[in-house]
Every structure is written in C-alpha cells, then in structure tokens.
C-alpha cells in the first residue's frame, strides 16, 4: 500500500456522481457494472498503485469507471469526460488502444485482460523488479476459457506481482451468473489453484484496503462481492442497468440519493 491520502466518503460520492453525469450527458448505458467496479478502482488508483505500476481493465465495459477514476486523479479533465462516447473522442465505450497513457490495452472483448496482465507481470518478473500489476475482471468473464488459461499460466509462473480483482456483482448480460452458467460460488472454483484468495465486500473501503495490503506469497485474487448499480437504489441488482441510459428525471433522482447523508 502506498502512502497516498485515504479517500474520504465524500470523494467516493463525488466520483459516483461524476460517473453518472458523464453517462447521462452522453446518453450511455453500462452504468450498473461501472458502479459496481468504481469503489475498488478508486482505491487501487488512489491508494495502491505507484506511477510505475500497471492496471489492466479486463471488463472493458467499465471504461466509464476507469475514465472517472483517471479524472479523479487529475489525469483526465472535465472536457475529456464531456467527449465520452461522442464523435472524435478518445473516450470510447471501451478503453482505447492509444492516446491515454494510463491505458495500455484496448479491452472490451472479455477474457483477454488477465492474459495481458499476466504477460505484463511476467515482463517485470523477468526484469527482476517488483512492479505491481492489477487486473480487474468481471464475474461473467470467468465463463471464458481464456481466463482460465491465464490463471493457469499466472499460477505456474508464480506471478506474485499480479493482483486480480473480480467484480462479482452476480449479474451479466442476459441473466444472473448463477442462472446463465453457474460457478456459484466462484471462490470455490478458484480455491483449487495455488493462489492467495480473499472474498470481501467490494464496497467496503477498509476491507478493500486491507485485502490489498495483505502480504502476498502467491498470485492474489480478491473476489469483490459487489452490487450492480451500487449507490443508486433503483439501479441496484437490476439487470436492465447493464444497458439502460439515464433519463433526466432518473439522473436527478440518482444524484439526490448519492448526495443524501
């Protein structure tokens, strides 16, 4: 854990509001899976990663949360976020291949990110340094065979400089993960691997901090039990917010709820 200042509750709420504003102004959905990932992403960037470390967003459809996080770090500006999802923007619906220094890979097709992160972590291992790599996956993408290929590889090569976060919000594109292709509970499937496994509340900042600060002996996987649409009650645990954009009324309702104590 680095020595950056701990994020305050207000800062989490501010980021959540900025994410919603960006999606509202651009008329874009994918909000639910952004809100489930945002808290962990904020802590990873503000409190865990050093400048030299690397982050790979395997669930590329949470690009909004990544852009918002980079905005909160001062690495993207309001004018950048205003261009989100519009013509002539760098901020596509999924992370771009070039143009943003903090984004190394264009992701969006699920099942790529963990391999990309493993290759990145292996590069640092071969160089003999302990640069850290964090990869955030969705829960649904553990249905991709390539994700398991990557896990086998990362374990075999003892990539202890790699931390994998799983945004386990239980909802995927067209159903719950349990209904579509159940591995429930996912952590039972993971337990057979040579990993340091933790299952925590993905919206409890202190739990996330503690998990990231824990000593590593092996590849670390932190399953974040999250809520799709977290922080906005009419979105929470509702599959349609994988897709729906916000109306003006719903946007104002959401902002009011986030601002309420």
């Amino acid at each position, binding site marked *: 854990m680095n020595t950056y200042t701990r994020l305050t509750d207000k800062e989490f709420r501010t980021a959540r509001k900025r994410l919603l504003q960006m999606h509202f102004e651009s008329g874009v959905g994918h909000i639910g899976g952004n809100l489930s990932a945002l808290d962990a992403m904020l802590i990873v960037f503000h409190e865990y990663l050093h400048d030299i470390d690397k982050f790979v967003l395997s669930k590329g459809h949470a690009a909004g949360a990544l852009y918002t996080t980079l905005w909160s770090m001062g690495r993207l500006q309001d004018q950048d976020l205003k261009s989100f999802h519009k013509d002539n923007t760098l901020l596509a619906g999924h992370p771009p291949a*070039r143009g943003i220094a903090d984004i190394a890979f264009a992701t969006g097709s699920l099942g790529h990110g963990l391999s*990309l992160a*493993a*290759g*990145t972590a292996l590069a640092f291992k071969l160089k003999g340094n302990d640069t850290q790599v964090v990869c955030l996956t969705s829960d649904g993408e553990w249905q991709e065979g390539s994700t398991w*290929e990557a896990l*086998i*590889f990362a374990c*075999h090569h003892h990539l202890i400089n790699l931390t994998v976060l799983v945004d386990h919000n239980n909802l995927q594109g067209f159903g719950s993960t349990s209904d579509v292709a159940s591995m429930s509970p996912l952590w039972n499937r993971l337990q057979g691997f040579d990993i340091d496994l933790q299952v925590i509340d993905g919206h409890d900042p202190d739990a996330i901090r503690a998990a990231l600060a824990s000593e590593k002996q092996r590849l670390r996987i932190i399953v974040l039990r999250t809520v799709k649409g977290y922080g906005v009650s009419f979105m929470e645990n509702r599959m349609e917010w994988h897709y729906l954009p916000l109306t003006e009324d719903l946007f104002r309702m959401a902002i009011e709820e986030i601002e309420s104590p």
Partner: protein
Amino acid sequence: MRKQLCDALVARAVKPEMVFLTGDLGFMALEPLQSVMGQRFINAGVAEQNMISVAAGLTRQNFEVWVYSIAPFCYARPFEQIRNDIAFHNLPVKLIGNGGGYGYGVMGPTHHAIEDYGVLLTLPNMSVYVPVFDEDMDVVIARAGISPRPAYIRMGRGEPPKGYKVPAYAPWRQLTCGSGPVVIAVGPLAGAYIEAFERLPAEYRPNLWIVSELPIERNPLPAELLTQLENSSCLCVAEEHVRHGGFGSDLLLHLADKNIGVRRFRHLYARAHHFDKYGSQKFLRQQSALDADSMLAVLKGLQHA
C-alpha cells in the same frame, strides 16, 4: 526449416530482451534454443489464446517476443487475441506458424493452414513472411526481427531441385527466365516448378518469380517484373492458399490500381480443406492442381488460348 529457424533464433538470443513462447511444440527441434534462453524460453502450454495475449503484455514492456506453434494453432485459434491485443496496438510480436499450406499433409485439415496469410493481412499493421528455401530463414528472422510491426512467418519445407544453387534471399526473386508467361509463386511450392521450367525451351519458359513478403503495398513489384508483365500477355499465380483473400486477388487489385492490364490470368490455389481422401502435401497439391505437371498444363493452355 525448423533447424534453420532454431539456428537463427539461437544466434539472436544473445539479445537479453528476447523472449520465446511456444504452444507446447518444438520437440526434437527447439531444444538448443531452450538451452540457451533459459527462463526466457517459455512453454506456454496448450493455451494459445493466453499465449498470444501474454506475448502482447511482454511486448508492451519492451521485450522482443517470438511465438511458435503449428500454423493453424498460431493464427486461427487465437485470432481475436492477435487482432485486439497485437494488431490494434501495433505491437511487434513475431508469430511463427509451422507447416504453412498443406504442410502437415496426411495429418488432416485441422493441421493445414491454407487461409493463414489472407486472414492475417486483413489486420492493421501486419506483415507476412513466406520463406521459400531453408536457407532463407536466417534473413527472414533478421528482417522480421527488426521490423517495428507485428509479423507472421509462414514456415514450410524448402524444396529446391537437387543440386540447385539457392539465390540469396530477397522479398522478390526471379528463379527462371524465358520468353514465356510470368509466373509468380508464393512459398516452397515454387521449388517444384524450377526443374519443370528449366526443361522447357527458352521461348516457352516462364519468368518464374517468388514473393516472400506481404502485403504488396509494403513490398511493391520490382521494375523488371513490371516490365515483364507489360510485355507479356499472360500471368499465372500459384499459392498454397485458398482463393479468397489470397495473393492472386490482391495482386490483381494492385495491378488494376496501377493501371497495369493483364490480358490472360490463371490462378492455381488450394482448392479445398477437405478432399475425398487424405494424403501427403504432394498428394494434396495434386488434388489442388498445384503440382508441376498441373502448372505446365495450365501454362500450355494459357499460351495457346
């Protein structure tokens, strides 16, 4: 070509930034490379999708990464990883596919690679190398190695006639000269044509060219070949690749763009993934009418058309 590949990579492995990934292949061929590279020689296992993305991750951190497998497992299984993770980012990963064309013969169509360079050349930034002779491999490795682009090397087995003096590698080479049609071949199958063409009288003998680097946009036709095309009324292209997306159609588009007309054109290509019966590479070339006798028959018809 595997021995020559291994020798070339062993020599190159003095570069500390070089990493070699294999998809669990290379037995009885790549052991010397494994020996000299140590932990930078990585058997990524039977997991080609992961192997390609790992290669992208390593390359992003400035390693020079070579990836090896049987050709279809190298480009077809992990195509999306090549597209998204390598080509979209213009990462200079070098893909080596062994057994291009019908190279794996009687092993069957799962092991054949007759749509490889056509598919890969649809991707941005991709370069393709098709060595013709075993002796080409060291130069091909050197040229692919210094290229700032991703590359696919389609390996086969050199088939020069006995006693043939292999010309030094070049992206375009002329192998036979005469007053006959222009023939352009892709890959080692050209070796079988040399002997057949040399037996022909000069007035009928084709100008046989081989091309080893694609796409044409980055390896334009040499002036001498263009002159021959302008003087000749006939062009024949032979490639162990399906017709769609192959070199033949790409060449015709290129010539059309340059306002170079071809009055008579014949295309010899890999006709099918499945024939009624399985067989060797030689057998499958015969089935596809890619063998030397079929070529001679096509040229005879072309000249008398």
